[in-house]
């Protein structure tokens, strides 16, 4: 049979995705598309109050409603022997003490702590019956005062949300040498300071959260959209179900986007498993979007005081970030990393800043828990730094391009150790900037500005030069199985949520093994298949699964070499492997392709016991160090001073993603990152009122970018291969956000500087911009 790699699917080719024929037909298998035989439907009763002591939960009326088979509350779950919601993170406070980790029962038992906090699960024969009955659950509360911002939560008279958390502080984080940084600021010729917020985001993958639980004779199964079934299974087994890992199976089909939000274990998943066991039938639950706004993990919500110390020539001496992260009501589902460690890692970016200090108080509030969102602190850190750089340039009268060039880490200093403990393996930051300026026609700006002004519009341009530190090393697996007939199944512990893993992973394997791309299928999403797997997050999948695939392919070749030596009657040392063929060195006619070898093995040729009996491998790799994708995005905005409407008119980006396995998908990832960045910069904001009621509870109130809001996104590359992974790849999934926040906001401020406006908070919505202009120019 013809069994060879086709160069049109080689690494570096823009191959369209193998999963798309299914998805464009609506034949994907998202969790809500799965119906289990005899399944029941769950709906949650949620707290309508942000904070209160639970006096009682009356479920009698709900229990008596038509079709209802069970109504369960937190005390049932506790009595059933289930563990409490876990919080895997541990970080020390600045005084060395451990961070507090208040425990949480999946359904609130003592208090409710945010609007949407689930208090009961109602299970019925139909979803409509369950919904009706959930309305009949009566929650008797003694309301308490609510706090919704970090500042109000830390106030002296604030109510305490968890008994353990004094002052509502979850983590008092600190990094850096306070004395040295203070000394640098004291001797600085100039200090630039800005108060910067990273606005709270409703993550909003288009597929709402959904789960179906099953219990059958000691065996648990959870169908759920997550970011890695291996870790989800382990946490569920160990922390919640107190079961051996092989008694728990997590199955994930298509995931309709996640962006960090679907990574943690949510209380609803625990409740459907509990109900499934209690009722002896599978139980499925699908969140309404209205509930998603209330109960999904939110993103961002940091408030930082940012300071940059410079010498007379504009050299950066130190950067200091001091502020708060609003973590919402519970740990576990919330994560402190975006407001703490990821600011440290990423604030250095592309610059030679020798000193840094980051102090963050991560604080509980009566709002939905805040977790990871695309970049998880990386885009924010780049935003803080790039706003400081533009501001410093303006204040010191130095050209903003020149100030960046002056402070770049030069390419000849690679590998470069940063003061935050990272070692950059590669990067050409000045070259990236220069290329971006050309690509964006930076010098043609004045003509475009005059043209905008002729139409009565302000025009501004902004640079966002970012560097992201992608996820740290973990372990990741790849198994390769050669099926009868010649198809190849790759299995990885990473998990696609729309990124398109199947195609680039197959491109890598096809090229390494010299086998047909079309024969390779990717299997993910079943914890029973997995021996390891960090899942997908932190822009690491191509790098981590890529290394696992490369090493697994090497093992296939090693096994093939042994078998080929036997079949070709040669010694193993004589066997070479090139383009999918094993040959005896120097005797090209004595050769076997992988396809031939499969036929020989499949044909039943007895192989001596000391030889591998197949080409199949199961490999666990230690994944490579973080990569350092970087780039320079340049935005130009037009602002209508009469209305305050900000429109991004031009958007150009030059990115260094190292070796791009599939540039079509890389560009798609970058575009997706930019749209989420644009949304955060100009439109998106989760708003709670003072009592903790969510005011932005639907897409009519929460503005997410639509097709009309987006400019053309111009994409170019300056690839510098990473030296720390075998593919030379750098993570691309989150970088778009990192470039978009600063480039768009620097452009908006540039346009508004005409009125002496030196800063705008995100999101720069029309009312805010209009107000800012009116304050400076009332006569307008």
């Amino acid at each position: 049979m013809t069994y060879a790699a086709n160069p049109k699917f080689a690494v570096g080719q823009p191959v369209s995705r193998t999963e798309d024929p299914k998805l464009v037909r609506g034949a994907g298998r998202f969790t809500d598309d799965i119906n289990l035989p005899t399944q029941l439907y769950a709906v949650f009763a949620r707290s309508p109050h942000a904070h209160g002591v639970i006096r009682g939960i009356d479920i009698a009326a709900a229990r008596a409603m038509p079709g209802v088979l069970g109504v369960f509350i937190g005390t049932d779950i506790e009595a059933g022997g289930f563990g409490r919601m876990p919080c895997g993170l541990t970080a020390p406070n600045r005084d060395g003490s451990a961070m507090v980790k208040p425990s949480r029962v999946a359904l609130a038992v003592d208090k409710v702590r945010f609007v949407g906090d689930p208090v009961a699960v109602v299970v019925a024969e139909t979803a409509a019956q369950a919904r009706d009955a959930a309305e009949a659950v009566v929650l008797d509360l003694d309301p308490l005062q609510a706090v919704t911002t970090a500042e109000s939560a830390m106030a002296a008279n604030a109510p305490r949300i968890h008994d353990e958390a004094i002052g509502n502080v979850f983590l008092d984080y600190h990094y850096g040498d306070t004395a040295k940084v203070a000394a640098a600021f004291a001797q600085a010729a100039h200090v630039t300071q800005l108060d910067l917020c990273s606005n709270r985001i409703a993550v909003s993958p288009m597929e709402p959260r959904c789960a179906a639980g099953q219990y059958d004779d000691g065996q648990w199964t959870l169908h759920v959209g997550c970011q890695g079934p291996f870790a989800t299974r382990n946490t569920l087994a160990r922390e919640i179900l107190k079961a051996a890992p092989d008694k728990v199976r997590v199955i994930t089909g298509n995931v309709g986007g996640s962006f960090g939000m679907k990574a943690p274990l949510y209380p609803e998943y625990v409740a459907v498993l509990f109900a499934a066991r209690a009722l002896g039938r599978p139980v499925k639950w699908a969140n309404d979007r209205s509930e998603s706004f209330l109960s999904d993990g939110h993103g961002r919500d940091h408030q930082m005081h940012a300071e940059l110390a410079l010498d007379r020539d504009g050299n950066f001496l130190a950067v200091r970030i001091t502020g708060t992260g609003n973590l919402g009501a519970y740990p576990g589902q919330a994560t402190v990393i975006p407001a703490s460690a990821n600011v440290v890692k990423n604030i250095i970016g592309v610059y030679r800043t020798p000193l840094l200090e980051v102090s963050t108080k991560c604080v509980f509030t009566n709002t939905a828990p805040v977790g990871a969102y695309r970049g998880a602190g990386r885009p924010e850190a780049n935003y803080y730094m790039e706003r400081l750089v533009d501001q410093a340039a303006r204040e010191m009268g130095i050209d903003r391009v020149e100030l960046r060039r002056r402070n770049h880490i030069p390419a000849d200093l690679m590998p470069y150790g940063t003061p935050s403990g990272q070692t950059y393996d590669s990067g050409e930051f000045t070259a990236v900037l220069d290329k971006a300026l050309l690509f964006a026609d930076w010098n043609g700006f004045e003509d475009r500005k005059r043209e905008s002004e002729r139409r009565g519009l302000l025009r501004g341009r902004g640079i966002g030069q970012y560097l992201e530190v992608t996820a740290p090393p973990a372990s990741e697996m790849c198994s390769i199985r050669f099926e009868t007939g010649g198809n190849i199944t790759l299995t990885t512990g990473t998990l696609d949520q729309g990124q398109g893993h199947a195609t680039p992973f197959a491109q890598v394997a096809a090229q390494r093994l010299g086998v047909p791309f079309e024969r390779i299928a990717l299997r993910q999403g079943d914890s029973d298949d997995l021996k390891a797997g960090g899942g997908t997050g932190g822009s690491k999948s191509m790098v981590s699964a890529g290394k696992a695939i490369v090493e697994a392919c090497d093992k296939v070749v090693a096994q093939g070499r042994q078998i080929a030596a036997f079949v070709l009657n040669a010694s193993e040392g004589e066997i070479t492997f090139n383009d999918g063929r094993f040959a005896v060195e120097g005797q090209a006619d004595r050769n076997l392709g992988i396809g031939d070898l499969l036929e020989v093995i499949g044909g039943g040729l007895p192989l001596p016991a000391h030889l591998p009996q197949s080409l199949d491998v199961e490999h666990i790799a230690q994944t490579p160090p973080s990569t350092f994708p970087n780039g320079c995005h340049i935005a130009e905005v037009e602002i209508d001073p009469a209305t305050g409407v900000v429109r991004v008119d031009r958007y150009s980006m030059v990115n260094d993603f190292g070796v791009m396995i599939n540039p079509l998908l890389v560009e798609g990832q970058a575009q997706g990152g930019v749209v989420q960045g644009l949304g955060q910069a100009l439109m998106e904001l989760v708003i709670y009122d003072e009592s903790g009621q969510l005011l932005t509870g639907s897409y009519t109130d929460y503005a997410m970018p639509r097709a009309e809001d987006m400019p053309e996104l111009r994409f170019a590359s300056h690839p510098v291969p990473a030296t720390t992974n075998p593919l030379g790849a750098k993570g691309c999934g989150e970088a778009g956000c990192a470039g978009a926040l600063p480039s768009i906001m620097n452009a908006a401020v540039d346009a508004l500087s005409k009125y002496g406006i030196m800063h705008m908070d995100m999101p720069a919505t029309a009312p805010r911009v209009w107000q800012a202009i009116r304050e400076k120019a009332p006569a307008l």
Partner: protein
Amino acid sequence: MPNVSLTVNGKAVSRDVDTRTLLVQFLRENLGLTGTHIGCDTTQCGACTVHVDGKALKSCTVLALQVEGKTVRTIEGLADGEKLHPMQEAFREHHGLQCGFCTPGMIMSAVDLLNRHKSPSEETIRHELEGNLCRCTGYANIVKAVQAAASAPRG
């Protein structure tokens, strides 16, 4: 329970339904046509877009009983057997989808758009798609796909 009879993807169907059953629920739950997705509950996201009597409609905001006697086409009814509809093909070729959740609704809206505009400008395409949210793509490749489908030969 009252009965509803209609034509879905060329086939006559008839079912007894709870009066409050939405068309999208009817398609997904009663007929097992799970390609039509539910992304919100306020008629904002467009993931549930189908065609009713040839026009795009958000199936989350109409009762199944309201489409009595009408002709419904869902994403499953778009391709010609193995052969993808030109719009599906264009989305596939131009990487107009990532997670694929908004995609069925987006494609149904885009087909409707081309039914009404023979050669739409980029501006028209972006404006016409305002009823369909996508969180993944930045819309760049969606617009490209619709442009490509607009210039593809039509059968």
